């Protein structure tokens, strides 16, 4: 057999092969960014822990039953009204703030609530307690959590705009970019301490 002279390899189909691979990777690539509602769990209490006595008026009770209905402070409520009600409770400012390590916070000077004596004393005393049934749907539970966090972020935003002229989200973002900036850190902490996020999960009901 005569050996033919080696002709140039036809590279015309190279593009086709590359396209095929390209399409494969295009299809398999998922560019999802994981995101979620962040929460910090409380530490496990010691055996002999006695829970402090908290005044009834400083607790905002949210109950979710197994049919995903909401009971807020003993009344039925739609999930869309939860944010407003929670905001009114947190921002009430009807009394003195808590005394933390000898530092008296005094009455809430930045609150714009009704200052009713039957609602919370101060944002740093206001506790939101969420109790759900074991059979509650997770989607509803998370929606309630989301609404409550939203209530806090609206209040924080408002205070941040009032004090520093920018929204809290922007403030936090600029702090994240520049972690060594002590001035920004102080501002962020100030807002966070003014409206601390106190959402507790009560022991679930089951039947």
């Amino acid at each position, binding site marked *: 057999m005569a050996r033919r002279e080696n002709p140039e390899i036809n590279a015309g189909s*190279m*593009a086709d092969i590359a396209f095929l691979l390209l399409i494969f990777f295009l299809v398999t690539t998922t560019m999802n960014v994981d995101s979620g*509602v962040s*929460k910090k*769990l409380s530490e496990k209490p010691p055996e002999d822990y006695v829970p402090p006595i908290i005044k009834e008026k400083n607790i905002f009770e949210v109950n979710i039953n197994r049919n995903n209905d909401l009971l807020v402070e003993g009344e039925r409520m739609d999930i869309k009204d939860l944010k407003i009600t929670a905001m009114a409770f947190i921002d009430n400012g009807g009394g003195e703030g808590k005394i933390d390590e000898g530092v008296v916070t005094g009455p809430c000077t930045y609150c714009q609530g009704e200052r009713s004596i039957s609602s919370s004393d101060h944002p740093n005393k206001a506790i939101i307690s969420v109790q759900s049934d074991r*059979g509650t749907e997770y989607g509803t*539970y998370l929606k309630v*959590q989301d609404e409550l966090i*939203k209530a806090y972020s609206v209040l924080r935003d408002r205070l941040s705009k009032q004090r520093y002229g920018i929204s809290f989200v922007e403030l936090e973002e600029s702090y994240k970019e520049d972690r060594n900036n002590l001035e920004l850190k102080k501002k962020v902490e100030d807002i966070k301490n003014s409206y601390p996020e106190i959402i507790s999960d009560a022991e679930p009901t089951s039947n």
Partner: protein
Amino acid sequence: MPAVNTASLPDIVFMLLFFFMVTTTMRETDLKLENPKLPSATEVQKLEHKSLVSTIYVGKSKDPARHGVGFNRIQLNDKIATAADVPAFIINSRSKVSEAEVPFMTTSIKADKESNVGTIIDIRLKLRDANALKISYSASKAVDN
């Protein structure tokens, strides 16, 4: 009109190809559960540092004959497990990172919106026992109202 020169077409395509090859991350664990339909929320935060995140899946099993129906199956790594296995899972994932980074570890709970709160609370109690206090309820970003 002369034909357009397509000689550089493979180069362009290869460049795109390399881009996608590099960015593709193959899923490390294969899901024994149906892909959970995540609830949506507006107050979501991005999870940073993927290597410090351990994920717990909760949802419906792909194989109901073996694991039963219902939305409350828990998957750790690539096995269906119970809440009692959570501490071991956390300790195992802790051993993979350096000690200094342990406090920054986050547990992401990817639960189907139809699963029950009871399951989530069981997991949460176990996480508290294991002292893994930073958690993130995985949710998709919803548009505000």
